[in-house]
Protein backbone atom coordinates (compact mmCIF):
# COMPACT_ATOMS: atom_id res chain seq x y z
CA UNK A 1 0.00 0.00 0.00
CA UNK A 2 1.39 3.45 -0.89
CA UNK A 3 1.32 6.26 1.67
CA UNK A 4 -1.84 8.32 1.30
CA UNK A 5 -0.02 11.29 -0.20
CA UNK A 6 2.54 9.33 -2.16
CA UNK A 7 2.67 10.31 -5.79
CA UNK A 8 1.87 7.00 -7.53
CA UNK A 9 1.87 6.47 -11.30
CA UNK A 10 -1.89 6.37 -11.08
CA UNK A 11 -1.97 9.70 -9.25
CA UNK A 12 0.35 11.28 -11.81
CA UNK A 13 -1.99 10.16 -14.57
CA UNK A 14 -4.89 11.71 -12.66
CA UNK A 15 -2.98 14.99 -12.23
CA UNK A 16 -2.00 15.10 -15.92
CA UNK A 17 -5.64 14.80 -16.92
CA UNK A 18 -6.70 17.33 -14.31
CA UNK A 19 -4.06 19.83 -15.46
CA UNK A 20 -5.39 19.57 -19.01
CA UNK A 21 -8.90 20.26 -17.72
CA UNK A 22 -7.57 23.30 -15.84
CA UNK A 23 -5.83 24.63 -18.96
CA UNK A 24 -9.02 24.19 -20.96
CA UNK A 25 -10.97 26.11 -18.33
CA UNK A 26 -8.37 28.88 -18.28
CA UNK A 27 -8.49 29.40 -22.02
CA UNK A 28 -12.31 29.31 -22.14
CA UNK A 29 -12.45 31.87 -19.32
CA UNK A 30 -10.07 34.17 -21.16
CA UNK A 31 -11.89 33.84 -24.48
CA UNK A 32 -15.17 34.69 -22.77
CA UNK A 33 -13.66 37.59 -20.77
CA UNK A 34 -11.91 39.05 -23.84
CA UNK A 35 -9.16 40.38 -21.58
CA UNK A 36 -6.70 38.98 -19.07
CA UNK A 37 -3.39 37.10 -18.97
CA UNK A 38 -2.64 33.93 -20.87
CA UNK A 39 1.01 32.95 -20.37
CA UNK A 40 1.30 32.74 -16.59
CA UNK A 41 -1.94 30.89 -15.82
CA UNK A 42 -1.13 28.24 -18.44
CA UNK A 43 2.45 27.74 -17.28
CA UNK A 44 1.47 27.45 -13.60
CA UNK A 45 -1.37 25.01 -14.26
CA UNK A 46 0.71 21.95 -13.33
CA UNK A 47 1.91 23.29 -9.98
CA UNK A 48 -1.54 24.59 -9.03
CA UNK A 49 -3.07 21.25 -9.99
CA UNK A 50 -0.48 19.42 -7.88
CA UNK A 51 -1.22 21.63 -4.87
CA UNK A 52 -5.00 21.71 -5.02
CA UNK A 53 -5.50 18.06 -5.97
CA UNK A 54 -2.65 16.46 -4.07
CA UNK A 55 -0.49 18.37 -1.60
CA UNK A 56 -2.34 21.28 -0.02
CA UNK A 57 -4.19 20.81 3.27
CA UNK A 58 -7.50 22.48 2.56
CA UNK A 59 -11.23 21.87 2.59
CA UNK A 60 -13.22 23.48 -0.24
CA UNK A 61 -16.44 22.98 1.74
CA UNK A 62 -14.94 24.76 4.75
CA UNK A 63 -12.73 27.49 3.29
CA UNK A 64 -12.17 29.01 6.73
CA UNK A 65 -11.00 25.72 8.32
CA UNK A 66 -8.40 27.11 10.73
CA UNK A 67 -5.81 24.37 10.19
CA UNK A 68 -5.62 24.79 6.41
CA UNK A 69 -2.40 25.66 4.65
CA UNK A 70 -2.31 29.27 3.46
CA UNK A 71 -1.78 30.04 -0.21
CA UNK A 72 -0.96 33.64 -1.09
CA UNK A 73 -0.99 34.59 -4.76
CA UNK A 74 1.36 37.53 -5.11
CA UNK A 75 1.22 37.71 -8.89
CA UNK A 76 -2.53 38.30 -8.86
CA UNK A 77 -2.76 38.65 -12.63
CA UNK A 78 -2.44 34.86 -13.05
CA UNK A 79 -5.69 34.41 -11.10
CA UNK A 80 -7.47 32.47 -13.90
CA UNK A 81 -5.41 29.41 -12.86
CA UNK A 82 -6.30 29.95 -9.19
CA UNK A 83 -9.99 30.40 -9.99
CA UNK A 84 -9.93 27.29 -12.19
CA UNK A 85 -8.41 24.99 -9.56
CA UNK A 86 -10.70 26.44 -6.90
CA UNK A 87 -13.79 25.80 -9.01
CA UNK A 88 -12.69 22.30 -10.03
CA UNK A 89 -11.89 21.37 -6.43
CA UNK A 90 -15.30 22.55 -5.23
CA UNK A 91 -15.03 26.07 -3.82
CA UNK A 92 -17.70 27.36 -6.20
CA UNK A 93 -19.57 26.06 -9.27
CA UNK A 94 -17.46 25.52 -12.39
CA UNK A 95 -20.11 27.42 -14.38
CA UNK A 96 -19.09 30.62 -12.58
CA UNK A 97 -15.70 30.56 -14.28
CA UNK A 98 -17.36 32.18 -17.28
CA UNK A 99 -18.05 35.31 -15.21
CA UNK A 100 -14.35 36.21 -15.01
CA UNK A 101 -13.83 39.99 -15.14
CA UNK A 102 -17.55 40.69 -15.49
CA UNK A 103 -19.56 43.14 -13.39
CA UNK A 104 -20.58 41.71 -10.02
CA UNK A 105 -18.53 38.52 -10.47
CA UNK A 106 -16.74 36.76 -7.62
CA UNK A 107 -13.90 36.48 -10.09
CA UNK A 108 -12.49 39.99 -10.25
CA UNK A 109 -9.83 40.80 -12.85
CA UNK A 110 -7.33 40.66 -10.03
CA UNK A 111 -8.33 38.70 -6.92
CA UNK A 112 -10.37 40.54 -4.29
CA UNK A 113 -11.34 38.64 -1.16
CA UNK A 114 -14.34 40.89 -0.54
CA UNK A 115 -15.89 39.24 -3.62
CA UNK A 116 -14.41 35.77 -3.06
CA UNK A 117 -13.85 35.33 0.69
CA UNK A 118 -12.15 31.94 0.24
CA UNK A 119 -9.10 33.83 -1.01
CA UNK A 120 -6.38 34.32 1.60
CA UNK A 121 -5.57 37.74 0.18
CA UNK A 122 -6.40 40.26 -2.49
CA UNK A 123 -3.60 40.94 -4.93
CA UNK A 124 -2.66 42.57 -8.19
CA UNK A 125 -0.16 45.31 -7.45
CA UNK A 126 3.05 43.29 -7.62
CA UNK A 127 5.57 42.72 -4.90
CA UNK A 128 3.46 42.58 -1.74
CA UNK A 129 2.31 38.96 -1.49
CA UNK A 130 5.51 37.57 -0.03
CA UNK A 131 5.43 40.17 2.74
CA UNK A 132 1.93 39.02 3.66
CA UNK A 133 3.04 35.39 3.65
CA UNK A 134 5.97 36.33 5.89
CA UNK A 135 3.50 38.01 8.27
CA UNK A 136 1.34 34.87 8.32
CA UNK A 137 4.40 32.72 9.06
CA UNK A 138 5.51 35.01 11.89
CA UNK A 139 2.02 35.10 13.41
CA UNK A 140 1.88 31.32 13.24
CA UNK A 141 5.24 31.03 14.97
CA UNK A 142 4.12 33.41 17.75
CA UNK A 143 1.10 31.19 18.39
CA UNK A 144 2.49 27.71 17.85
CA UNK A 145 6.29 27.94 17.73
CA UNK A 146 7.76 25.09 15.73
CA UNK A 147 4.82 22.83 16.43
CA UNK A 148 2.74 24.48 13.69
CA UNK A 149 2.07 22.17 10.78
CA UNK A 150 0.48 24.75 8.56
CA UNK A 151 2.47 25.60 5.47
CA UNK A 152 2.41 29.16 4.16
CA UNK A 153 2.91 29.04 0.39
CA UNK A 154 3.44 32.17 -1.68
CA UNK A 155 3.37 32.28 -5.47
CA UNK A 156 5.45 34.90 -7.23
CA UNK A 157 6.17 35.74 -10.82
CA UNK A 158 9.79 36.14 -11.89
CA UNK A 159 9.27 39.59 -13.42
CA UNK A 160 7.64 40.58 -10.16
CA UNK A 161 11.01 40.21 -8.45
CA UNK A 162 11.93 43.60 -9.96
CA UNK A 163 9.88 45.06 -7.11
CA UNK A 164 12.10 46.05 -4.18
CA UNK A 165 9.54 45.10 -1.57
CA UNK A 166 10.14 41.41 -2.34
CA UNK A 167 13.74 41.74 -1.26
CA UNK A 168 12.68 43.41 1.98
CA UNK A 169 10.46 40.40 2.63
CA UNK A 170 13.12 37.90 1.54
CA UNK A 171 15.59 39.57 3.91
CA UNK A 172 13.16 39.48 6.85
CA UNK A 173 12.19 35.83 6.25
CA UNK A 174 15.87 34.87 6.17
CA UNK A 175 16.54 36.78 9.37
CA UNK A 176 13.57 35.20 11.13
CA UNK A 177 14.38 31.69 9.80
CA UNK A 178 10.75 31.07 8.90
CA UNK A 179 10.74 27.35 8.30
CA UNK A 180 6.97 27.28 7.72
CA UNK A 181 7.27 29.58 4.71
CA UNK A 182 7.66 28.48 1.11
CA UNK A 183 7.93 30.66 -1.99
CA UNK A 184 7.31 29.29 -5.47
CA UNK A 185 8.66 31.44 -8.31
CA UNK A 186 7.21 31.08 -11.79
CA UNK A 187 10.45 31.33 -13.76
CA UNK A 188 8.92 31.71 -17.21
CA UNK A 189 11.46 34.36 -18.26
CA UNK A 190 8.89 36.82 -19.59
CA UNK A 191 7.18 39.99 -18.45
CA UNK A 192 5.02 42.59 -20.21
CA UNK A 193 7.82 44.50 -21.94
CA UNK A 194 9.88 41.49 -22.97
CA UNK A 195 12.18 38.78 -21.67
CA UNK A 196 13.09 39.24 -18.02
CA UNK A 197 16.81 39.19 -18.73
CA UNK A 198 16.34 42.10 -21.17
CA UNK A 199 13.93 44.14 -19.07
CA UNK A 200 15.78 43.73 -15.76
CA UNK A 201 18.19 40.83 -15.41
CA UNK A 202 17.48 38.53 -12.46
CA UNK A 203 20.26 35.99 -12.88
CA UNK A 204 21.91 34.46 -10.98
CA UNK A 205 18.47 34.15 -9.37
CA UNK A 206 19.10 31.09 -7.19
CA UNK A 207 22.28 32.65 -5.78
CA UNK A 208 20.37 35.78 -4.84
CA UNK A 209 17.86 33.83 -2.73
CA UNK A 210 20.61 31.64 -1.26
CA UNK A 211 22.57 34.68 -0.13
CA UNK A 212 19.51 35.84 1.85
CA UNK A 213 19.58 32.57 3.82
CA UNK A 214 16.89 30.68 1.94
CA UNK A 215 16.88 26.99 1.00
CA UNK A 216 16.77 27.00 -2.80
CA UNK A 217 15.63 24.38 -5.33
CA UNK A 218 15.39 24.80 -9.09
CA UNK A 219 13.06 22.42 -10.85
CA UNK A 220 11.17 21.65 -14.04
CA UNK A 221 7.81 23.23 -13.25
CA UNK A 222 5.96 20.88 -15.59
CA UNK A 223 7.14 17.57 -14.11
CA UNK A 224 4.88 16.24 -11.36
CA UNK A 225 7.71 14.06 -10.04
CA UNK A 226 10.01 17.08 -9.81
CA UNK A 227 7.31 19.27 -8.25
CA UNK A 228 6.50 16.57 -5.70
CA UNK A 229 10.12 15.95 -4.80
CA UNK A 230 10.83 19.67 -4.33
CA UNK A 231 7.65 20.32 -2.37
CA UNK A 232 8.31 17.39 -0.05
CA UNK A 233 11.88 18.44 0.47
CA UNK A 234 10.87 22.06 1.15
CA UNK A 235 8.49 20.81 3.87
CA UNK A 236 11.38 19.04 5.56
CA UNK A 237 13.63 22.12 5.82
CA UNK A 238 13.56 23.13 9.47
CA UNK A 239 15.89 26.05 9.89
CA UNK A 240 15.11 28.45 7.07
CA UNK A 241 12.49 29.45 4.53
CA UNK A 242 12.39 27.59 1.27
CA UNK A 243 12.03 28.72 -2.32
CA UNK A 244 11.26 26.60 -5.35
CA UNK A 245 12.27 28.27 -8.59
CA UNK A 246 10.03 26.53 -11.08
CA UNK A 247 11.38 26.73 -14.59
CA UNK A 248 8.31 26.90 -16.78
CA UNK A 249 7.44 27.42 -20.41
CA UNK A 250 5.19 30.44 -20.73
CA UNK A 251 1.76 29.64 -22.22
CA UNK A 252 2.55 25.93 -21.73
CA UNK A 253 0.12 23.74 -23.64
CA UNK A 254 -0.35 25.94 -26.69
CA UNK A 255 2.86 25.52 -28.73
CA UNK A 256 2.11 28.53 -30.96
CA UNK A 257 1.99 30.82 -27.90
CA UNK A 258 4.81 29.25 -25.90
CA UNK A 259 7.90 31.27 -24.92
CA UNK A 260 6.45 34.40 -26.53
CA UNK A 261 6.34 37.34 -24.14
CA UNK A 262 3.61 38.96 -26.25
CA UNK A 263 1.18 36.49 -24.63
CA UNK A 264 1.91 37.68 -21.11
CA UNK A 265 -1.02 40.03 -20.83
CA UNK A 266 -3.59 39.28 -23.54
CA UNK A 267 -6.13 36.54 -24.30
CA UNK A 268 -6.80 34.87 -27.64
CA UNK A 269 -9.28 37.21 -29.35
CA UNK A 270 -9.19 36.71 -33.13
CA UNK A 271 -10.99 33.68 -34.61
CA UNK A 272 -7.59 32.30 -35.70
CA UNK A 273 -6.06 32.65 -32.22
CA UNK A 274 -9.11 31.10 -30.60
CA UNK A 275 -8.98 28.18 -33.01
CA UNK A 276 -5.25 27.65 -32.39
CA UNK A 277 -5.73 27.70 -28.62
CA UNK A 278 -8.72 25.35 -28.61
CA UNK A 279 -7.14 22.92 -31.05
CA UNK A 280 -3.91 22.73 -29.02
CA UNK A 281 -5.85 21.87 -25.87
CA UNK A 282 -8.23 19.50 -27.62
CA UNK A 283 -11.32 21.61 -26.98
CA UNK A 284 -14.17 20.87 -29.33
CA UNK A 285 -16.22 23.78 -30.62
Amino acid at each position, binding site marked *: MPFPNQLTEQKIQFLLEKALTIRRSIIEMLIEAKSGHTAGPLDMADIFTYLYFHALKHDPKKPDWPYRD*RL*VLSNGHICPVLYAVMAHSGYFPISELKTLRKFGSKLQGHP*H*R*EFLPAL*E*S*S*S*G*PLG*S*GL*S*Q*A*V*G*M*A*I*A*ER*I*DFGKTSNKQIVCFLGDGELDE*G*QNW*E*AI*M*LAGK*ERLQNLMAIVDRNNIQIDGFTEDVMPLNPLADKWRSFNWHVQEIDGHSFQAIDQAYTQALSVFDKPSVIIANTISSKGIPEFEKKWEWHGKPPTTPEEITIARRALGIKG
Partner: protein
Amino acid sequence: MQNPSQKLNPKLFDKDIEQIPIRKGFGEGLVIAGDMNKNVVGLCSDLTDSTVMNLFKDKYPDRFIEMGIAEQNMASVASGMAAMGKIPFITSYAMFSPGRNWEQIRTTVCYNDRPVKIAGSHAGVSVGPDGGTHQAIEDLAITRVIPNMVVISPCDAIEAKKATIACAKTRFPTYIRLAREKTPIITTNETPFEIGKAQLLFAPKNDKRAEVGIIATGALLHRALKVAYELENEGKMVKVLNLSTIKPLDEDIIWKLAHETGAIVTVEEHQIAGGMGSAVSECLARHYPVPIEFIGVNDKFGQSGTPDELLEHYGMGEKDIKIAVQKVLLRKK
Protein backbone atom coordinates in the same frame (compact mmCIF):
# COMPACT_ATOMS: atom_id res chain seq x y z
CA MET B 1 -15.47 79.01 28.93
CA GLN B 2 -14.32 75.43 29.23
CA ASN B 3 -17.14 72.96 28.83
CA PRO B 4 -17.37 71.49 32.36
CA SER B 5 -18.83 68.19 31.13
CA GLN B 6 -15.55 67.49 29.33
CA LYS B 7 -13.56 67.54 32.57
CA LEU B 8 -10.55 69.22 30.94
CA ASN B 9 -7.23 70.00 32.57
CA PRO B 10 -7.96 72.78 35.13
CA LYS B 11 -4.60 74.35 34.25
CA LEU B 12 -5.57 74.58 30.58
CA PHE B 13 -4.83 78.30 30.26
CA ASP B 14 -1.99 78.51 32.78
CA LYS B 15 1.56 79.32 31.72
CA ASP B 16 2.99 76.26 33.49
CA ILE B 17 0.62 73.75 31.86
CA GLU B 18 2.15 70.27 31.75
CA GLN B 19 3.49 69.25 28.34
CA ILE B 20 4.05 65.67 27.12
CA PRO B 21 4.79 64.39 23.60
CA ILE B 22 1.64 62.92 22.01
CA ARG B 23 3.63 59.86 20.88
CA LYS B 24 4.28 58.98 24.53
CA GLY B 25 0.55 58.49 25.05
CA PHE B 26 0.58 56.07 22.14
CA GLY B 27 3.46 54.09 23.64
CA GLU B 28 1.72 53.79 27.00
CA GLY B 29 -1.62 52.97 25.39
CA LEU B 30 -0.07 50.20 23.32
CA VAL B 31 1.22 48.45 26.45
CA ILE B 32 -2.28 48.56 27.95
CA ALA B 33 -3.80 47.30 24.67
CA GLY B 34 -1.22 44.50 24.78
CA ASP B 35 -2.16 43.67 28.37
CA MET B 36 -5.81 43.45 27.38
CA ASN B 37 -5.34 41.28 24.29
CA LYS B 38 -2.52 38.83 23.62
CA ASN B 39 -3.11 39.15 19.88
CA VAL B 40 -1.84 42.72 19.88
CA VAL B 41 1.62 42.76 18.25
CA GLY B 42 4.06 45.57 17.47
CA LEU B 43 6.17 46.13 14.36
CA CYS B 44 8.65 48.93 13.92
CA SER B 45 11.01 50.14 11.19
CA ASP B 46 14.15 50.94 13.15
CA LEU B 47 12.58 53.78 15.16
CA THR B 48 11.48 51.89 18.22
CA ASP B 49 12.51 54.44 20.84
CA SER B 50 11.42 57.57 19.00
CA THR B 51 7.97 56.11 18.27
CA VAL B 52 7.85 54.99 21.93
CA MET B 53 7.13 51.41 20.89
CA ASN B 54 10.07 50.45 23.13
CA LEU B 55 7.66 50.26 26.09
CA PHE B 56 5.74 47.48 24.32
CA LYS B 57 8.92 45.81 23.09
CA ASP B 58 10.35 45.67 26.62
CA LYS B 59 7.22 44.16 28.09
CA TYR B 60 6.36 41.81 25.21
CA PRO B 61 9.58 41.01 23.34
CA ASP B 62 8.02 37.92 21.72
CA ARG B 63 5.23 40.02 20.24
CA PHE B 64 7.52 42.68 18.81
CA ILE B 65 9.10 42.40 15.34
CA GLU B 66 12.00 44.60 14.33
CA MET B 67 11.46 45.21 10.63
CA GLY B 68 14.57 47.16 9.75
CA ILE B 69 14.20 50.24 7.55
CA ALA B 70 11.51 48.70 5.35
CA GLU B 71 8.15 50.41 5.75
CA GLN B 72 6.56 48.86 2.67
CA ASN B 73 7.33 45.38 3.88
CA MET B 74 6.13 46.34 7.35
CA ALA B 75 2.64 47.30 6.16
CA SER B 76 2.15 44.06 4.22
CA VAL B 77 3.71 41.81 6.88
CA ALA B 78 1.23 43.38 9.30
CA SER B 79 -1.58 42.55 6.87
CA GLY B 80 -0.46 38.91 6.83
CA MET B 81 -0.30 38.79 10.62
CA ALA B 82 -3.79 40.29 10.80
CA ALA B 83 -5.00 37.57 8.43
CA MET B 84 -3.95 35.07 11.11
CA GLY B 85 -5.88 36.86 13.87
CA LYS B 86 -3.30 39.35 15.12
CA ILE B 87 -3.92 43.06 15.75
CA PRO B 88 -0.70 44.58 14.47
CA PHE B 89 0.41 48.11 15.31
CA ILE B 90 3.04 49.41 12.90
CA THR B 91 5.13 52.46 13.65
CA SER B 92 7.50 54.79 11.91
CA TYR B 93 7.55 58.49 11.13
CA ALA B 94 4.35 59.50 9.39
CA MET B 95 6.36 60.57 6.36
CA PHE B 96 7.40 56.94 5.81
CA SER B 97 4.32 55.18 7.13
CA PRO B 98 1.73 55.97 5.76
CA GLY B 99 3.88 58.08 3.38
CA ARG B 100 6.38 55.73 1.76
CA ASN B 101 4.11 52.68 2.04
CA TRP B 102 0.80 54.19 0.96
CA GLU B 103 0.01 51.66 -1.76
CA GLN B 104 0.79 48.73 0.53
CA ILE B 105 -1.60 50.21 3.08
CA ARG B 106 -4.22 50.80 0.41
CA THR B 107 -4.06 47.33 -1.11
CA THR B 108 -2.81 44.86 1.47
CA VAL B 109 -4.40 46.48 4.52
CA CYS B 110 -7.52 48.41 3.46
CA TYR B 111 -8.56 46.59 0.26
CA ASN B 112 -8.00 43.37 2.22
CA ASP B 113 -9.93 44.92 5.14
CA ARG B 114 -7.42 43.82 7.78
CA PRO B 115 -7.27 45.40 11.28
CA VAL B 116 -3.79 46.90 10.99
CA LYS B 117 -3.18 50.02 13.10
CA ILE B 118 -0.75 52.53 11.63
CA ALA B 119 0.82 54.92 14.11
CA GLY B 120 2.57 57.75 12.26
CA SER B 121 4.84 59.69 14.54
CA HIS B 122 6.57 63.06 14.00
CA ALA B 123 3.65 64.41 11.95
CA GLY B 124 3.41 68.11 11.12
CA VAL B 125 5.98 70.87 10.67
CA SER B 126 6.66 70.94 14.41
CA VAL B 127 9.16 68.10 13.95
CA GLY B 128 11.30 71.20 13.46
CA PRO B 129 15.05 70.99 12.81
CA ASP B 130 14.92 67.75 10.75
CA GLY B 131 13.47 69.80 7.91
CA GLY B 132 10.86 69.38 5.21
CA THR B 133 11.69 65.80 4.21
CA HIS B 134 10.61 64.60 7.65
CA GLN B 135 7.56 66.81 8.12
CA ALA B 136 4.44 64.87 7.15
CA ILE B 137 1.76 67.39 6.25
CA GLU B 138 -0.09 65.23 3.73
CA ASP B 139 -0.82 62.15 5.86
CA LEU B 140 -4.44 62.93 6.78
CA ALA B 141 -5.28 63.48 3.11
CA ILE B 142 -3.73 60.23 1.91
CA THR B 143 -5.25 58.09 4.65
CA ARG B 144 -8.76 59.47 4.83
CA VAL B 145 -9.25 58.90 1.12
CA ILE B 146 -8.88 55.10 1.48
CA PRO B 147 -12.10 53.08 1.98
CA ASN B 148 -12.39 51.07 5.25
CA MET B 149 -9.83 53.31 6.96
CA VAL B 150 -10.42 55.08 10.28
CA VAL B 151 -8.32 58.22 10.85
CA ILE B 152 -7.59 59.65 14.30
CA SER B 153 -5.53 62.71 15.16
CA PRO B 154 -5.33 63.00 18.97
CA CYS B 155 -4.84 66.40 20.60
CA ASP B 156 -2.60 65.33 23.48
CA ALA B 157 -0.86 62.33 25.04
CA ILE B 158 -3.88 61.37 27.14
CA GLU B 159 -6.19 61.29 24.15
CA ALA B 160 -3.56 59.37 22.15
CA LYS B 161 -3.48 56.75 24.88
CA LYS B 162 -7.27 56.40 24.82
CA ALA B 163 -7.33 56.28 21.02
CA THR B 164 -4.68 53.55 20.95
CA ILE B 165 -6.55 51.39 23.43
CA ALA B 166 -9.87 52.02 21.66
CA CYS B 167 -8.66 51.23 18.15
CA ALA B 168 -7.12 47.92 19.29
CA LYS B 169 -10.69 46.81 20.00
CA THR B 170 -12.08 47.50 16.52
CA ARG B 171 -11.78 45.46 13.34
CA PHE B 172 -10.95 48.51 11.20
CA PRO B 173 -7.69 49.54 9.59
CA THR B 174 -6.78 52.70 11.49
CA TYR B 175 -4.33 55.56 11.16
CA ILE B 176 -3.29 57.39 14.34
CA ARG B 177 -1.40 60.63 13.79
CA LEU B 178 1.20 61.50 16.43
CA ALA B 179 3.36 64.54 17.04
CA ARG B 180 6.93 64.47 18.26
CA GLU B 181 7.10 67.63 20.34
CA LYS B 182 5.95 68.15 23.89
CA THR B 183 2.31 69.19 23.65
CA PRO B 184 0.13 70.81 26.33
CA ILE B 185 -2.14 68.41 28.16
CA ILE B 186 -5.70 69.47 27.38
CA THR B 187 -7.76 66.50 28.49
CA THR B 188 -7.79 64.32 31.60
CA ASN B 189 -8.42 60.64 32.16
CA GLU B 190 -12.06 61.57 32.82
CA THR B 191 -12.59 63.38 29.50
CA PRO B 192 -14.94 61.28 27.36
CA PHE B 193 -13.43 59.68 24.25
CA GLU B 194 -15.11 57.67 21.56
CA ILE B 195 -13.83 56.99 18.03
CA GLY B 196 -16.05 58.93 15.61
CA LYS B 197 -17.23 61.51 18.18
CA ALA B 198 -16.07 65.11 18.32
CA GLN B 199 -16.23 66.96 21.63
CA LEU B 200 -17.27 70.51 22.39
CA LEU B 201 -14.46 71.76 24.64
CA PHE B 202 -15.20 75.48 24.80
CA ALA B 203 -18.52 77.36 24.69
CA PRO B 204 -19.98 80.75 25.65
CA LYS B 205 -21.11 81.18 29.24
CA ASN B 206 -24.76 80.66 30.16
CA ASP B 207 -25.49 78.68 26.99
CA LYS B 208 -25.37 81.83 24.88
CA ARG B 209 -25.43 81.43 21.12
CA ALA B 210 -21.92 81.30 19.62
CA GLU B 211 -21.08 83.56 16.66
CA VAL B 212 -18.14 81.53 15.37
CA GLY B 213 -17.12 77.87 15.61
CA ILE B 214 -13.49 76.75 15.64
CA ILE B 215 -12.87 73.12 14.71
CA ALA B 216 -9.36 71.94 15.54
CA THR B 217 -7.48 68.67 15.48
CA GLY B 218 -4.18 67.44 16.92
CA ALA B 219 -1.56 69.48 18.69
CA LEU B 220 -2.86 72.85 17.41
CA LEU B 221 -6.05 72.42 19.41
CA HIS B 222 -4.39 74.07 22.39
CA ARG B 223 -3.62 77.20 20.37
CA ALA B 224 -7.21 77.28 19.13
CA LEU B 225 -8.45 77.09 22.72
CA LYS B 226 -6.14 79.92 23.79
CA VAL B 227 -7.47 82.09 20.98
CA ALA B 228 -11.05 81.28 22.01
CA TYR B 229 -10.22 82.25 25.60
CA GLU B 230 -8.82 85.60 24.43
CA LEU B 231 -11.78 86.25 22.17
CA GLU B 232 -14.15 85.49 25.00
CA ASN B 233 -12.38 88.10 27.12
CA GLU B 234 -12.91 90.52 24.24
CA GLY B 235 -16.62 89.78 24.33
CA LYS B 236 -16.89 87.35 21.37
CA MET B 237 -18.98 84.20 21.58
CA VAL B 238 -16.89 81.24 20.45
CA LYS B 239 -17.24 77.47 20.42
CA VAL B 240 -14.31 75.09 19.96
CA LEU B 241 -14.64 71.48 18.82
CA ASN B 242 -11.97 68.86 19.23
CA LEU B 243 -12.27 66.82 16.03
CA SER B 244 -9.89 63.97 16.80
CA THR B 245 -11.56 61.44 14.54
CA ILE B 246 -11.24 62.73 10.97
CA LYS B 247 -12.92 59.61 9.59
CA PRO B 248 -15.64 58.61 10.14
CA LEU B 249 -16.58 62.24 10.50
CA ASP B 250 -18.97 63.32 13.28
CA GLU B 251 -21.19 65.12 10.75
CA ASP B 252 -24.01 65.85 13.18
CA ILE B 253 -22.01 67.95 15.58
CA ILE B 254 -20.30 69.77 12.69
CA TRP B 255 -23.40 70.89 10.83
CA LYS B 256 -25.13 71.82 14.07
CA LEU B 257 -22.18 74.06 14.93
CA ALA B 258 -22.40 75.64 11.46
CA HIS B 259 -26.13 76.08 11.90
CA GLU B 260 -25.66 77.82 15.24
CA THR B 261 -22.70 80.03 14.31
CA GLY B 262 -22.89 80.53 10.54
CA ALA B 263 -19.09 80.81 10.46
CA ILE B 264 -16.39 78.14 10.84
CA VAL B 265 -12.60 78.17 11.20
CA THR B 266 -10.69 74.89 10.87
CA VAL B 267 -7.26 74.48 12.48
CA GLU B 268 -4.79 71.72 11.68
CA GLU B 269 -1.06 71.21 11.23
CA HIS B 270 -1.45 69.77 7.74
CA GLN B 271 -1.85 70.86 4.16
CA ILE B 272 -5.10 72.75 3.75
CA ALA B 273 -5.79 70.61 0.68
CA GLY B 274 -7.23 67.27 1.61
CA GLY B 275 -6.96 67.49 5.38
CA MET B 276 -9.41 67.87 8.23
CA GLY B 277 -10.63 71.26 6.96
CA SER B 278 -11.42 69.67 3.63
CA ALA B 279 -13.37 66.91 5.36
CA VAL B 280 -15.35 69.55 7.28
CA SER B 281 -16.04 71.57 4.14
CA GLU B 282 -17.17 68.45 2.23
CA CYS B 283 -19.65 67.87 5.04
CA LEU B 284 -20.87 71.47 5.26
CA ALA B 285 -21.12 71.96 1.50
CA ARG B 286 -23.63 69.11 1.51
CA HIS B 287 -25.54 69.77 4.71
CA TYR B 288 -25.21 73.43 5.68
CA PRO B 289 -22.92 75.71 3.65
CA VAL B 290 -21.41 78.58 5.64
CA PRO B 291 -18.22 80.67 5.22
CA ILE B 292 -15.11 78.72 6.30
CA GLU B 293 -11.54 79.85 6.88
CA PHE B 294 -8.79 77.24 6.87
CA ILE B 295 -5.72 77.31 9.09
CA GLY B 296 -3.04 74.95 7.77
CA VAL B 297 -0.13 74.82 5.36
CA ASN B 298 -0.98 76.48 2.06
CA ASP B 299 0.58 74.25 -0.61
CA LYS B 300 4.18 74.53 0.64
CA PHE B 301 6.85 72.13 1.90
CA GLY B 302 8.31 72.58 5.37
CA GLN B 303 11.88 73.49 6.33
CA SER B 304 14.22 73.51 9.35
CA GLY B 305 13.46 75.72 12.32
CA THR B 306 11.96 75.60 15.79
CA PRO B 307 8.35 74.45 16.00
CA ASP B 308 7.17 77.94 16.96
CA GLU B 309 9.09 79.60 14.13
CA LEU B 310 7.65 77.16 11.63
CA LEU B 311 4.07 77.40 12.85
CA GLU B 312 4.30 81.21 12.60
CA HIS B 313 5.97 81.08 9.18
CA TYR B 314 3.37 78.76 7.69
CA GLY B 315 0.39 80.67 9.09
CA MET B 316 -0.62 78.42 11.95
CA GLY B 317 0.18 80.73 14.88
CA GLU B 318 -2.35 82.07 17.37
CA LYS B 319 -2.42 85.42 15.59
CA ASP B 320 -3.28 83.64 12.32
CA ILE B 321 -6.17 81.84 13.99
CA LYS B 322 -7.41 85.14 15.36
CA ILE B 323 -7.22 86.81 11.96
CA ALA B 324 -9.09 83.87 10.42
CA VAL B 325 -11.86 84.33 12.99
CA GLN B 326 -12.12 88.04 12.14
CA LYS B 327 -12.20 87.27 8.42
CA VAL B 328 -14.87 84.64 8.67
CA LEU B 329 -17.01 86.93 10.85
CA LEU B 330 -16.78 89.62 8.14
CA ARG B 331 -17.81 87.12 5.46
CA LYS B 332 -20.81 86.02 7.50
CA LYS B 333 -24.04 87.42 6.20
